[in-house]
């Protein structure tokens, strides 16, 4: 059953290669020998039951959580075998959007976007302002949002601002943690198309943890399903034919039918 489940093992030059990752909290094993390849330039959606470890997988790849066993390569480099400086340099190649944007609440939107830029680059003030304005426009925020504090923004705008900060250094890989959670259907659809457009325009690889079936059908090239402490990767159509009971239920349930996944 595992052989056809991961048909892409041994992908050439993937953006992210996860091998045999084990994560456990106390006695609870979350991931047990998890393998995953994310191809360059694709949008991969990660789904799974609550508590299956979707966010943990994301946190492990970006280094917020350290795996008990296994290896993680990002852009061909094993993140555990890098010096501090090399890891810092690698970090420039990815951006992370957390669930509610995770903007620094004591700073304006513009200052938030400037944090990573100032951390890695030494730009002239006028150039810095220009880059900031560009990033704000890129994610579809009005220019006057720049001087606002996160508490003055709506949930959707906070996510866009968080996205602008994640894109501040023109990353190759974008990690999104439930980008459409908490948005109304129109806002969620707009956010989906924003991500799709940005992904195509900037050539991004997108790793997206989601619960939203509409996002999965609309923008994901492939879907990784977390079941039995491992992942099963496939396109939407291949997963629709998959035998695993949880996957069947997920893609053939009433909500999936409403989202048009079950065609």
């Amino acid at each position, binding site marked *: 059953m595992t052989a056809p489940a991961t048909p892409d093992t041994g992908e050439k030059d993937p953006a992210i290669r996860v091998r045999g990752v084990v994560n456990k909290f106390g006695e609870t094993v979350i991931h047990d020998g998890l393998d995953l390849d994310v191809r360059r330039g694709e949008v991969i959606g990660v789904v799974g039951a609550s508590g299956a470890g979707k966010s943990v997988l994301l946190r492990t790849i970006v280094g917020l959580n350290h795996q008990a066993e296994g290896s993680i390569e990002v852009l061909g480099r094993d993140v555990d075998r890098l010096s501090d400086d090399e890891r*810092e340099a690698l970090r420039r190649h990815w951006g*992370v959007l957390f669930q509610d944007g*995770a903007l620094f609440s004591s700073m304006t939107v513009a200052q938030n976007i400037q944090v990573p830029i100032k951390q890695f680059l030494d730009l002239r003030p006028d150039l810095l302002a220009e880059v900031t304005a560009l990033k704000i426009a890129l994610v579809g925020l009005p220019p006057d949002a720049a001087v606002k504090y996160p508490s003055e923004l709506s949930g959707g705008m906070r996510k866009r601002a968080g996205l602008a900060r994640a894109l501040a250094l023109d990353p190759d890989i974008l990690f999104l943690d439930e980008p459409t959670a908490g948005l109304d259907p129109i806002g969620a659809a707009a956010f989906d198309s924003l991500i799709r457009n940005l992904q195509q325009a900037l050539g991004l690889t997108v790793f997206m943890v989601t619960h939203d079936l509409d996002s999965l059908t609309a923008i994901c090239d492939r879907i990784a399903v977390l079941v039995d402490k491992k992942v099963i990767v496939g396109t939407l159509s291949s997963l629709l034919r998959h035998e695993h009971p949880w996957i069947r239920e997920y893609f053939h349930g009433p909500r999936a039918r409403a989202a048009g996944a079950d065609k």
Partner: protein
Amino acid sequence: MARNLIAFLGLVTIAIGRAIRHPRRIRVTAVIANMERSGFNALPIVGLLSFLIGVVLAYQGVDQLTRFGAEIFSINLLAVSMLREIGVLMTAILIAGRSGSAFTAQIGTMKVNQEIDAMSTLGLDPIEVLVLPRILALVITLPLLVFYSDMLGMLGGAIALMLLLDMSPTQFLIQLNSAIPMGTFWVGIIKAPFFAFAIALIGCYEGLRVSGSAESVGRLTTQSVVEAIFLVLILDAGFSILFSSIGI
């Protein structure tokens, strides 16, 4: 708990070492903002309480010592207790309640909001950005606050004694000068940076321990204040033993 706190102390020490080698990494703006919040803004409350404590000490001293006809020694009682212990202890406890709790709540809320995670993924070290400026700010401001508290406490005591014993300010100062050496004052002040370090360390440590919910912010804020005051009293006891063994 103690082991994790010591591990955290280790992380902070490493960050301090790095900051000493690269002083440009110290976030001066954050240090000054924290000094204003936990130092300058605390002046009214620290001043008022110190003044009142001075008055109370003077009254109690005169009350008891009059029975022996030794009421003039109320000045010694006031000066020794205020300068050696009460000024620094009361200020430290007040700042633990005022700023230690604020550190925990601020950092804890940032943790809940995933701001700390965002910081780490942007390559910023939360200890360098959040913890060091708070520790540095408190280590600088607490000795100043203690000096201020000492002065206001002595002023309150002096006014009460001059009224009760019908003394002139000159008489008070002459008696004060003969009653205590300058060392008494320094014994109080020297403890302040250590208390400040303990309060800020615990405040930040508990803030970073917050996980998940607003409920956890509240619980750990309470815990942070209790632990900070506890640690301050332990340190104070340690200092007392140390000072008496070296004969100060």
